[in-house]
Structure formats: structure tokens, C-alpha cells
């Protein structure tokens, strides 16, 4: 009732109930939005961590096995290539056949499938390291197949059986558990191996090396070019139409979808300049173009923050414009520029899409040694693994994500600390 006989004060009071409710609602929406954002963060991290922590442990089967020189047809004096080509897989199979006594061929096959196909290499590398073990009996921790690994880490003790393992296989495994032969240990394989089709043999070292090489190329190119461009635009560029176009261009470029940089890399670097695909070199070139706008924009902000009084003082002492910039302005702007560069590098580190275009998605087992070796990078490795049906790969994907996030946290913390430590107040 808003009667004309009511005074203003009464009318206002009358409206208050509705308005207080609206105020509370609005405030709740706001709070809910912030909480929703934070919740997403928690869920995302929680999800990745709960899936990925187990990637850092690996199940192994401890067994004593005789390195039978007669069977392998080698002696401690055999040449390295003979030792390399000996049939270690056969040795392991024979060992388990004698040990477990499977009935028939198919049972034997299902027994062998419990052991990783990399077990032969484990024995091989042990023998290569010390040929004197030939003919002796050694105790080794053999990698088990990813199905066993997953079952032991996640389902053992739940009484839930297994989809991927048969009754018989579970019986053998339980036998191993009872004799304390099966245990988990820190998953070094994950950090020292390159990619593999077998989850238990797959590692991220190749991807990490590829990432480091790619970022090295990116840094070596984008930092000097970005700083030079920022200096030019802020200190030397005449204020004209051309400069304005360059500025608009840089701002727009920072917002262009990253995938178009991949198209550029493919069409120009690979097809026209003939840079070989899948290499850190071409990846670094593409990421350089992508991070340049970030570095230039932050670099300009850093230069702008240097007070004009410092320039005037230097110019007043008779320094040339160039000397003023390089001796006085640049050192003061450096912390800001470095911070921007680290942030740009962090972006480049997480970037995936453009690298898919230029072939960094290839399946590369070897760890790259130089910037023109075929390689992949960590985010692409994550993309590749996430597509694999094996549960062990899901786990490793999450593990790789944790490593990637770890790198990002380190870089961003470094940027924040740098900003704090080197921040100058004029």
C-alpha cells in the first residue's frame, strides 16, 4: 500500500522488507559465485591428486632367479652385443614355469602376462652392468604387468575380485602376496623412462626433456626479441600511425587462439622453411611467436614504470638516448620484464594445441638429446596418455599432470618472489 497519505519516511520503511531480502539474496549470489570458483579449484585438484598419487608407486615382484649362462648362451666373457641379444624373456618364462607349474599352454601364457614385458630388459641391464652374475643366482625386483599393479594398489583387500585378472591369476598373485614377494616401491621408471605402449614402462623423462629443450628455444628467442620490441615501442618508436598499428596488433595477437599459431608453424616453418617437424626447435619457434605479445606487453609496462626523472637525469649528464635506455632504464625495468617473461614461459609450458599441429604428438620413445631430435612435451604427453584406455595410463596421466602443475607452481612462485624481492619503490 503506497498511499499518498503516507509520509516519505513511512513509504521508505514500508519498502525495506523487500529491499533487505533483495540485498541478502544478491550478497548470497556473490558469495556463492566466489565459493563455486573455489570449489571448482578444490575439486579439480582433489580429482587429479586422488587419481595421480598412486602413479608414483609401482608394484614389483621380488624373485630369485638363476642367470643361467647355458640357457642364455653367454659367459661373463661374452661380447656386449651377445649379452644384449640373449633371450632374457625366455629365461624369465622358464623361471616362472618351474616356479609356479602352470598346466598347459594357455595357463602358462596367462601366467607370463602377469610379468611386465620390460622384465627381460631389467635382467639384461643388470647383466650388462656386471657380467660376473652370469651363472649365479640373483634376487631381482621384477616389474609386474599394469593389470597386476593396478589390482594390487587399488583393489587388493577389497574382496572385489578383478575384471582384468582371472581367478587363476589372482590365485598366483595371492600366493606371491602371502610369500611377501609382491610389494610397492617408488616408481623410478616413471621418471627415467621415455614413453612406452606398456603403462608400467612408460615414463615422462622424454617429455620433460622435450619440454625443457622447447622452453630453452622459446626463452632464447622470445626474451631478447620481446625486450628489444618493448624498448623500441616504449622509447624509440615515433608516435605515428605505424606504431599505433603495431600496438593494436600486439594486443590482438595476445588474444588470438593458440591453435592458429600452430597453423602458422605448420604452413611457414615446416612447409616453407623446411624445419623438421616434431622437434623442440619448431615447437620453440611457434611458442616464441605465441609468448612474444605477453613479454612485450609486460616489458612495456615495466619500462613505463621507470620514472622519467631517471631518464632526464641521465640525458642531462650528456648520455645519448641509447645509453640512457641501456644503462639506466633497462636495469631498472629488468625485474618487471623477467617476471613477465616467466609468466609467458609458464603459459608456453602448459600450451598443447599448437604443438599438435607441428607433429609433437608423435610417439617418441627415445629421450631427445638436442633441439632437432624428434620429441614430445609434457602437456602433449598428457594428451596422448589421456586417450589410452588402460587404467594405469589414467593414473600416469594424473601423475604427469601433477608434475606439470609442480613446474607451473615453481615458475609462478619464482615470478611472485622476483617481483617482491626486486620491486623498487621510487
Amino acid at each position, binding site marked *: 500500500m503506497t498511499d499518498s497519505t503516507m509520509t516519505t519516511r513511512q513509504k521508505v520503511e514500508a519498502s525495506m522488507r523487500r*529491499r*533487505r531480502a*533483495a*540485498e541478502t539474496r*544478491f*550478497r548470497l*549470489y*556473490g558469495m556463492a*559465485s*566466489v565459493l563455486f*570458483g*573455489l570449489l*571448482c*579449484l578444490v575439486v*579439480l585438484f582433489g*580429482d*587429479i591428486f586422488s*587419481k595421480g598419487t598412486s602413479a608414483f608407486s609401482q608394484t614389483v615382484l621380488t624373485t630369485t632367479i638363476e642367470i643361467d649362462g647355458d640357457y642364455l648362451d653367454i659367459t661373463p666373457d661374452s661380447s656386449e652385443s651377445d649379452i644384449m641379444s640373449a633371450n632374457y624373456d625366455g629365461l624369465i618364462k622358464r623361471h616362472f614355469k618351474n616356479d609356479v607349474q602352470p598346466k598347459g599352454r594357455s595357463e602358462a601364457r596367462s601366467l607370463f602376462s602377469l610379468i611386465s614385458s620390460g622384465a627381460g630388459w631389467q635382467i639384461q641391464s643388470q647383466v650388462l652392468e656386471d657380467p660376473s652374475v652370469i651363472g649365479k643366482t640373483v634376487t631381482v625386483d621384477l616389474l609386474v604387468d599394469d593389470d597386476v599393479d593396478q589390482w594390487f594398489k587399488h583393489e587388493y583387500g577389497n574382496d572385489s575380485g578383478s575384471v582384468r585378472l582371472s581367478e587363476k591369476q589372482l590365485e598366483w598373485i595371492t600366493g606371491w602376496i602371502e610369500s611377501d614377494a609382491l610389494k610397492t616401491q617408488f616408481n623410478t621408471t616413471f621418471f627415467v623412462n621415455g614413453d612406452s605402449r606398456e603403462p608400467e614402462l612408460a615414463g615422462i623423462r622424454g617429455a620433460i626433456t622435450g619440454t625443457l629443450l622447447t622452453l630453452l628455444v622459446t626463452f632464447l628467442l622470445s626474451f631478447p*626479441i*620481446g625486450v*628489444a*620490441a618493448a624498448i*623500441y615501442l616504449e622509447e*624509440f618508436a615515433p608516435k605515428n600511425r605505424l606504431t599505433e598499428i*603495431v600496438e*593494436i*596488433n600486439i*594486443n590482438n595477437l595476445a*588474444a*588470438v*587462439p593458440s*591453435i592458429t599459431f*600452430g*597453423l*602458422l608453424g*605448420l*604452413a*611457414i616453418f615446416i*612447409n616453407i*622453411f623446411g624445419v623438421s617437424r616434431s622437434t623442440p626447435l619448431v615447437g620453440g619457434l611457434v611458442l616464441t*611467436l605465441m609468448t*612474444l605479445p605477453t613479454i*612485450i606487453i609486460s616489458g612495456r609496462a615495466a619500462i613505463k614504470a621507470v620514472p622519467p626523472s631517471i631518464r632526464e637525469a641521465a640525458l642531462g649528464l650528456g648520455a*645519448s*638516448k*641509447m645509453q640512457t635506455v641501456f644503462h639506466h632504464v633497462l636495469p631498472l625495468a629488468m625485474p618487471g620484464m623477467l617476471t613477465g617473461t616467466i609468466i609467458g614461459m*609458464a603459459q608456453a*609450458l*602448459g600450451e*598443447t*594445441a599448437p604443438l*599438435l*599441429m607441428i607433429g609433437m604428438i608423435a610417439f617418441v620413445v627415445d629421450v631427445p638429446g638436442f633441439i632437432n631430435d624428434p620429441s614430445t612435451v609434457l*602437456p602433449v604427453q598428457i*594428451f596422448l596418455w*589421456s*586417450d589410452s584406455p588402460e587404467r594405469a595410463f589414467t593414473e600416469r596421466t594424473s601423475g604427469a599432470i601433477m608434475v*606439470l*602443475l609442480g613446474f*607451473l607452481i615453481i615458475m609462478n612462485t619464482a615470478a611472485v618472489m622476483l617481483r617482491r624481492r626486486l620491486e623498487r619503490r621510487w
Partner: protein
Amino acid sequence: MNYSTLLIALLIALGAAYFLGRNRARSLAGQGESMHSLPTHYGALTALWTTLPPLLILIMWVMLEPRIVDALLTMQLPEAIRTASEAEVRLALSKVHNIASDPTMMGQSDLGSVAAHLVDLEQRAAILKGGVILSVILLGVAVTWRRIQPDLRARGEVERIVRIMLFASSAIAVLTTLGILVSVLFEAVLFFQKVSPIEFLFGTTWSPQVALRADQSGSSGSFGAVPLFAGTLLISAIAMFIAVPVGLMAAIYLSEYATSRVRQLAKPALEVLAGIPTVVYGFFAALTVAPFIRGIGESVGLDVSSESALAAGLVMGIMIIPFVSSLSDDVINAVPQSLRDGSYGLGATRSETVRQVVIPAALPGIVGAVMLAVSRAIGETMIVAMAAGLAANLTANPLDSVTTVTVQIVTLLVGDQEFDSPKTLAAFALGLVLFIVTLALNFVAIKIVQKYREQYD
């Protein structure tokens, strides 16, 4: 000599030339000459003239060598291949390169002799390259050494060169844009020679697989991109539906309501969301959110695709929340306090002030921010590549699987690329559309935000 050796040689030359130039200037000064510039300027000048010309030659060499080599090889190819189609020449050339890199294959192919020629060519090119670069380095040192005289204005010359280098660096940004445009445009034009732009822009069937049999839909696949555009818009719309209200309300809450303590904690925490790589979001969408939504859908009897647009859009929305909120935060903070005071002075509540004064005042800026966010959603690749499907369905049902422009670009270009097949070229046509649309959005958005800022400055 390979490139890394040459680069190291250049670095050594750089250092050596600097010291040579500086010492020459010092010794001249020591003889009582009055030099125009400082010795370091002469050093820098020598270093620049010693390393820049060979560096430029090296870059040109990198660009030109493969073409010249291929041209020479083509002449060596058997008559039959040379007169056949361009594609076959290219195929033969790549075979030759493969053979040349693996000596065991040399004798096994009829192209073996050409491969041997290639090996020979490469060896000669390497020697020639090393010779040319080294002599240019020496020439640079020698000429500059002789030029170092008391009246040489080294400082001015060094500064001019440095200035040109600075300019060249800033020009790279423009060249990048041009590079994107040219590369995309060039291949897209080739595509449009095979497929009409009308069909591409308005056709509603997308099946880029070049058919094996002639009776399948269009013997060269069909390239109607409308389902892709629709899918992109659907997923972007879902993302915006999440990101705009949540991002905007979060920005409002943090700037108008929250205590400074809450703000200091919540703001960086939200920004962490923006720093997470998109591939991580993709993984989260594909392995956690999509099955979750599917599970919910099944429990209420809905048929949800395992690669639903909803899952991809939802996660993309989460990714964009901090983007919208930090842009809106800037915009809202730019609204002068005097407007808020005016509203409070009349007895408005906070929410009335925000809704009826602050938001309308900030509207242009918010529109700009949303446009930038839309451009980001349209161009986002990894989330959709991992969580959205490949099926080009033309649907508005968020529970269905749709595909997007970016997903198709990735799919078409990952794996074997044939630059004469419309399948590969189609990716560039899609890239062209993507580039133009996002560039236009960014351009307008950045202009709007700039205008808005100036209004309250």
C-alpha cells in the same frame, strides 16, 4: 659444417671481434690519437659487422637450401616420375630423403642413385656454407678493423644499427599476424578452388573423409561447416552461461562486498584457475565431468552422450570464470567512487547501487570483457579436443555430442597431411574462419574497453 657448429663459431667471432675492435681503438688512443667514441663503441661496432651479415646469410641459407636441393634432385629423377603429377614428384623426393638418411637402403631402390647424388650435394653444400660464412666473418673483421680511425663515429653507427635491430624485433609481432593470415589464406584459397565457399559456409553435412567409393556422399568428402559452427557456438554458449554470471558476480562480490582479507585470499585463488593448462581441464572434463554428467543423466532416465557438449562447455566455463572476473574487476574498479556515493547518498542499498548504477556505468567495459571471453571460448582447443566428440551433429541439445571448429582442425592436421587433399586444406579454411572471427571480436572488444577506460580517466 652443421648449423650448431656455425652458430658456435659466430658466437666466438662475436666475442673476438669485440675485443679486437676495442683494443685497436685503445691502442690508437694510446698513440695519442683523440678518438671520436669510447673504445667499447668500436668493439661493439666490430662485433656487429662481424656477426650480423653472416647471421643473415645463414638464415637465408636455411630457407633456400632445401628448395635448391630439391630442384636439383628433381632433375635427376627418372623421366616417368618427373612428367607425372606434382604429388608423385614430391613423394619420390621424400623417398630420396629417406634413403639418403639410411645408408643401408641405398642399394635397394631404383632411386638409390638420386639418393647418392643427394648425399653428395649435401656434403658439398655443407662445405660451401662453412666456407662462405667463415669468409664473411673474416671480411667483416678486416673491413671494420681498417675503418677504425680516430674520426670514425662509431657510437652513432652502433646506435643506428641497434635501433634497426630494435625496430626489427617489434616488427616481428606484425609479421606474425601477417604470417598467420598469409599461411591460412593461401591454403584456404587452394581449398576453395576444390570446394565452393558457399558449400563450406552454408552446407550442413561435414564428413571430411575422402570417400573410397564413388557412390559415398560426395566422392571427395563433404565440407559443409555449419554443424561445426553450431557445435562451437553451443559449447561456447554453455561456457558463457557458466562463466559470465559466476565471473561477474564473483568480481562484484570481491570488489563491493568482501573484506580486504577475503579479497586478498580469494582473488589469487581464483586466478590459479586461469593458470591451469587447458590440457588439464580437458582431462578433467573427459575423465571426471563427462562420466559424472552421464551418470546423473542416466539416473533420471536421460540419454546423455559420453562426449556431451555439456561436459565440455561446463569445464570450459570454469576455465573462463577467472578471465571474466578479473576483467570485470578492472572494469568495475574503474567506475568512479563518486557515482557510488551519489547512490548511497540517496539511500540506495549496496545491491541497488551495484545493479542500477555501477553495472550500467561499467556496461561497455563488461561487454568488452565478455567479448574477449567469447573469443577465448571459440578458440579453446584442448578441452573440446579431449571432451567433445568428432561427430558433426547439427543439434542444440547439450546432452548430445557435437564437434567444434578447433577439434576438426586438430583432427584433420594430426597424422598424415597431404597438402593437395581438400581434407588437409579444409583445416586451413576452418583456421581462416576462426582467425577472422576471433580477431574481429578481440579488435572490437579491446577498442570498447579502451574507450571505456578513457571515459573515466
